């Protein structure tokens, strides 16, 4: 059954279709938030809130064929709210962490466990972070992202370009302080290991 048909069934009260729709939104919200915020509790919250919001406003979706773009927009909105709730101060910059632990024997080990991308992504604007997440989590192209964030394709390319520049600056800053080397520029395995992953 295609997406539009499931959406129509969900709107008619079909519980199975509603759960299918809710799962699709929940999953997207959770994934975008985990990617952007690196916090499993927040990711759960974002997924749940996005699913509830989508189910409550499903009747207002005019064209079920455009469900995915509509649901991505809801998820991006929830992601923005979650980021505001958390605030930028929640991330401790790695150079600060390094200074605090410079004399400790487990310094290197401690730093290796840290995920440099999370604070680096926190330096992006909300729109840049949404664009990066939609590209690398959902695999959307420029045109699809443009539909979700309601911008032109050129704007999307510009946002991505600026985001990459900011990430590069952040990474180079960490390299200069000796906090992040080439071997650490990768996602720490199991960085979201606390979350339930279906087998």
């Amino acid at each position, binding site marked *: 059954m295609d997406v539009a048909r499931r959406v129509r069934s969900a709107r008619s009260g079909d519980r199975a279709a509603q759960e299918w729709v809710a799962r699709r939104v929940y999953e997207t919200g959770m*994934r975008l938030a985990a990617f952007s915020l690196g916090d499993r509790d927040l990711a759960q919250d974002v997924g*749940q809130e996005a699913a*509830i919001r989508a189910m*409550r*406003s499903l*009747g207002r979706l005019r064209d079920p064929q455009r469900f995915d773009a509509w649901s991505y927009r809801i998820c991006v909105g929830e992601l923005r709210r979650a980021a505001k709730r958390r605030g930028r101060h929640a991330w401790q910059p790695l150079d600060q962490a390094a200074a605090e632990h410079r004399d400790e024997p487990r310094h290197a080990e401690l730093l290796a466990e840290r995920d440099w*991308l999370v604070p680096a992504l926190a330096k992006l604007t909300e729109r840049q972070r949404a664009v990066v997440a939609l590209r690398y989590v959902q695999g959307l192209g420029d045109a699809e992202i443009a539909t979700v964030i309601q911008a032109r394709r050129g704007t999307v390319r510009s946002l991505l370009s600026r985001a990459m520049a900011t990430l590069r600056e952040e990474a180079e800053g960490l390299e200069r302080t000796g906090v*992040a080397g080439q071997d650490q520029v990768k996602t720490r395995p199991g960085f979201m290991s606390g979350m339930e992953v279906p087998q």
Partner: protein
Amino acid sequence: MNESTIERALVQRGASARDLSPTPAQVSAAVTSARRERRRSAGSLRRGWRAPALGLAALLVAGTGALAATNVLNPDLGSFLGGGSPPGRPLTAAETPGWIKQAQRAAGHADAALVASAGSHRLIAYRDSAGNVCFDYDESVAECDPPAYLVGQLAKQPFVLRGPIRDHPGTADTHGSLFGFVRDGIATVRLDYPDGRSLRAPAANGTFVVPIALGDHPTQLVGLTADGKETSSHDLSQLVADELAAIRVTQP
């Protein structure tokens, strides 16, 4: 650090994120929560809500055959469900209950209309801030649902009944009213009783209100065309008797 290294890190992080999925329990909880919040958003606006014990008993009367939704809706009701203004007579500010004014302020518009009435019994329609269509049955019961819900119900059956709703909820009042929605083409509804009596009510804008005595049990609901021809009927004796028995109040 070069661009491709950053790109690789982002790709790896995206792949890790894609491994995540909610559990079935989490999904189910989200759906249930959405439904509960939708109901609460309607109920919380009301004063003197008296729900299941006396009030809203949804009697979904099974009909014969399913028709395409577009063919079954009264045009005025269909227009409302499709996003237009509610059918019937617009309520004046003085007539509009406070809880509806509250909903209108939240929704940013002022459409509320008296869709059907019988004496002091009123069926009022309006739209809430979430785009749901809302129906108030007298002063005690309201419901808000996505338009597709009612469309779906009328596609499956010729009548959708709401009630019986007691005139004075929470009292021993033996008077109440039945509300309902009907398919297009039904101009009048008739409730038949075992002793040969019957009650008629016009189906205005695809809806109706019938004042009833709660102690009497109608046996049949009949839909009539404008020229009096019976188009559909359903045996209510068992269903309504059960509902009425459930809400009967023992006199002190």
